[in-house]
């Protein structure tokens, strides 16, 4: 079975003399899997995710998305990935619909697939008529929703989310969690970072814990019923 994401020996530093922000992380995401990245503030979660997304250059290691190396075939690798950033960056002078159309054009989504996909995602994220408004008028949560909808317009094989639940209301959060499971079950893979242990334990098939840029463990949450307790033990002991 082909891996959707394969990260091997990833190393990244922000300045030549700075310490490694990410030091030799390796992880994989297989079809149907939800993989969580856990770690305290500054552990290297967001840096790892930004390297995978192509936002940050990295010094060593390889990253492959759907078999495409991000350095050798960046455009093909990126075409197979959807991402949601932690800062909800979005072109706020566009309306929600214009932003989604922009992304659909960039990812070359077929004309016939655009409307049905928007309808489906609208049901999950519940943005309603706000999609016709300028994004600058959106609340924090609504910006998070439009980012999520946009990241899925091209139905990517890999969905990468950095702190996805921040700013969402409980109803939407539940709906998003349900959708994440459904989306993974369609044969896609999801990689997301979070501080919420309960949410990670409930949703993830595997959890990678990072400390000071190093990967300290890769837990398979499907193994038995005691894994949540095991996750908490490892997480708190490693901090």
């Amino acid at each position, binding site marked *: 079975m082909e891996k959707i994401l394969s990260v091997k020996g990833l190393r990244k530093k922000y300045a030549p003399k700075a310490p490694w922000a990410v030091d030799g992380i390796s992880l994989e995401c297989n079809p149907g899997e939800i993989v969580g990245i856990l770690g305290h503030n500054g552990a290297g979660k967001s840096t790892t995710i*930004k390297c995978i997304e192509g*936002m*940050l250059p990295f010094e060593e290691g390889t990253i492959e998305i759907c078999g495409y190396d991000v350095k050798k075939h960046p455009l*093909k690798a990126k075409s197979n990935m959807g991402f949601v950033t932690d800062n909800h*960056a979005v*072109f706020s*002078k566009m309306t929600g619909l214009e932003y989604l159309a922009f992304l659909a054009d*960039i990812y070359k989504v077929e004309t016939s697939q655009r409307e049905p996909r928007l309808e489906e995602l609208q049901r999950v994220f519940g943005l309603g008529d706000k999609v016709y408004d300028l994004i600058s008028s959106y609340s924090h949560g609504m910006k998070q929703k439009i980012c999520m909808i946009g990241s899925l317009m091209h139905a990517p094989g890999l969905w990468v989310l950095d702190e996805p639940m921040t700013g969402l209301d409980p109803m939407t959060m539940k709906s998003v969690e349900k959708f994440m499971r459904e989306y993974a079950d369609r044969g896609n893979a999801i990689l997301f970072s979070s501080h919420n242990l309960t949410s990670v334990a409930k949703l993830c098939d595997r959890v990678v814990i990072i400390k000071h840029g190093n990967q300290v463990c890769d837990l398979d949450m499907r193994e038995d019923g005691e894994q949540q307790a095991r996750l908490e033990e490892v997480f708190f002991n490693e901090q």
Partner: protein
Amino acid sequence: MNNKFKDSAPDIATLRVLLKKQAKETFSGFKDKKFDYLGLILKIAIYICFTATFVFMFVRFSGVYLDIKLYGVQDISARAYEMLTVLYEVVFLLTVIGAVGQINHTLFHNDENMLFSAMPINGSTLFLSRLISIYLKQLIVSIIFVFTVNISLAPSIHAGAWYYVATLLTTVFWPFLSISVASLIVLPMRKVLEFFKNRFVLSFVCVTVMLAGGFTAYYFVLNAVKQILLKDDLRYFFTEKVMNSIAEGVSFTVPARFVAGFVLGRDTLVNGLISLAIALVCAGFAVLMIKLLFRKAMQSKTQGRSDFERKKKAFPKRRSPFTALIKKEFIIVFRTSSYMFSYFSVALIMPLMVFFCLSLGDNMVKTLVGVDTSLELALILTMLFGAITNTFCATNISRDGMMFYCVKAMPVSAKQVVFSKIALCLFTTVLSNLLNAVLVGAGGFVNVGEAVLLAVTGVLFAFSQICYATRADMKFARFSDSDGGEISQSSDLISQIIVIGFLSIIICGGALLYLNVQGNLKGMKIENVTWSVSLVAAILSCVFFYIYLVRKLATKYYEFSGGY
């Protein structure tokens, strides 16, 4: 109602803390390693040039104006009173406009108000700190305008000690006048601005028309001054009829005529008392109005509001990634009022600026030197105003804000991203230069061939500047963390580009002008020199800066991580 807004005495200790914080924030920019010192020097230089020109012209003008005899009688005091009244009225209008902006920003666009409303800070204290801040800013404006006007006039009227004391008092009290009138205008002004808020096309048309109108008015004023100067005697212009009209007009100006009378010692007591009464009433009124506005601002900040409209639309039609990127660029520039003004409106007005300046300069040069330099002047002016317009391209990368990184994560190449920005700039500059060539050609300053040369060299030089500005911005870009990444502070790169552009134009354009004048005076035909030099220079700069842009573009693009 929130208890914080109920009247209570200001807390002096907290007031001191708030003022100290504001002062620190005002001067914090100097501590920034990337502080735009060049920009500051440029601003000071422009101010000094402007003031020096004003003082020079004003002293020359006042010397002649004060000599004017009405019905055979010379009355220096009456002429000085008229001059000062008219100038005060102009200064009054300018300071009121400035005060409207300051009140609006301090009260309605300051996120700190919301933060402070949650802190144990007395509402009166906060209000007073804001009021002092507005007053101090207006005082600086008052010193710049009122003080300069008064001191410039002093030697011509042989001013005594009282004049200087009154000047000082006027400078200190002037902000009360401007702030009070501005506080009346702020709310209606906000209503007007809110009406235009999401009406982008209407805003664009109105701003451009106003800008064009402003330049046209400026042209007519300068043209009148030129005519007067060329006739070499101002007294022919100021006939008895004109002088009577001025005297009548002056009697309607409030508060300028009272302040002018007070400063010049004409019915000092009466004018002084009226001025003081106006200042006090205005001060009281200003405090009341701003207090009301302040409550409104605090409430609107804490309660929040929705002011957007819904229009259901079908999914927009499919575009190629490159076209989608160009459309995105257009939307961002067109829907951000500051960008729209500083680029699209200025680019559209550029031909008018060239035309007006050419109309003024061409005739003057012909009269003074006796040589036809229309083409050279047109080239210099096109480059000069083109350079001003295209400095906006120095925000090509930085105006994306944190979205720069998101676009990096999308399946589009560095070339597609950068060239979509260049394409929008190029489209704007081609349109602007074509209009310019047509206007200058239609005005009879150049023939068809020269108009084509003007358009081609204009576009080529603009392209060079766009390439340089974009690449330099990729090297030095700083992303704003405001919503949407809108840039609110001027960048040192823009100042650099203005200085480099101006110097190049002055050197190259000046050389062409010199060659033409000298060549014509010596009876040589040098038309071909202008053509070949301008074309070769334009093509060379175009090639050089294009290579500068594309060299290692992808590497630089993907390696840039300034914001993280």
